[in-house]
């Protein structure tokens, strides 16, 4: 396995989707390649930082309009 092979599999590798033999090949390469080791760590951290992250505000007026609209539509649908 070379650097290109690791880069193309880094996503599946951190998700644990690869077969054991491929994982072994990657980890053998990682022992010898600092750049790829850093790449794997940083890709993991990237995923970690974004997972379930609250980057969007939920304005009260948006919430109020949602409740008002749902109430109206549900009331209409039950008539």
């Amino acid at each position, binding site marked *: 396995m070379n650097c*290109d092979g690791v*880069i*193309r599999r*880094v*996503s*599946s590798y*951190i998700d644990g989707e690869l077969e054991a033999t491929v994982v072994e090949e990657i980890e053998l390469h990682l022992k010898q390649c600092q*750049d790829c080791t*850093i*790449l794997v*760590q*940083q*890709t*993991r*951290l*990237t*995923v*970690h*930082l*974004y*997972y*379930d*992250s*609250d*980057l*969007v*505000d*939920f304005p*009260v007026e*948006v*919430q*109020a*309009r*949602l*409740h*008002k*609209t*749902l*109430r109206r*539509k*549900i*009331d209409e*649908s039950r008539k």
Partner: protein
Amino acid sequence: MYCATLAAQSIQPGLLANLARTLTLSTPNPHRLPSKVAREDEHLLVAAAKSGDISAFEELVNRYERKIFRLTMNITRNREDAEDAMQDAFMKAYSHLDKFHEDSRFYTWLVRIAANEALMRLRKRRPNQISLDEPIEGEDDFIPQQIQDWGPSPEQRYAQTEMRDILRSVIDELPPDFRVVFVLRDVEGLSTEETADAMGISEAAVKSRLLRARLKLRQKLDRHLRQDGKH
């Protein structure tokens, strides 16, 4: 009344606390804990809502509205579209509750409905920017040119609000094709199969786009998080 009940229950739960929880963990391991929204009583609420109990549906709305708005905003990047998509998603969920099979999670089902609503609006605004089918096998522009260490716990060098701004600006730079897959898989925690299903693309396409999205994000974050970027 429906509105009064919703308003009474709709306390905005710790936005910053949630962010803090996400950002202050320094272990670079994206181990997936069960989402906090997967509460044990979800199936009871869904069963009650299916039998016509409006207050049970209200509770489901209260529980998930913030996350659904986050999803539709992350996909459309347009507040008006995001709001419409969220409203239509909840209404569709209400109208089609009888079609929901309780062998899967209600939240996942709701996310798929909301993702579809948001994608429909995104495609209307940007008809040429969202591919429906095969993996994007373009140039290898995602191959990293230069790798630099970010140092230990790079995220802790930033205030939470500063980090939030960085993450938001970086994800905004992703092309829509990549952003949508990344949001569904890595922000909302859907599986590859669920993401493929929600987007109407193959699982191979999801994996291909996810790889590129993650590498592009890593590269863009590198500008901010590398050790010599800020001390």
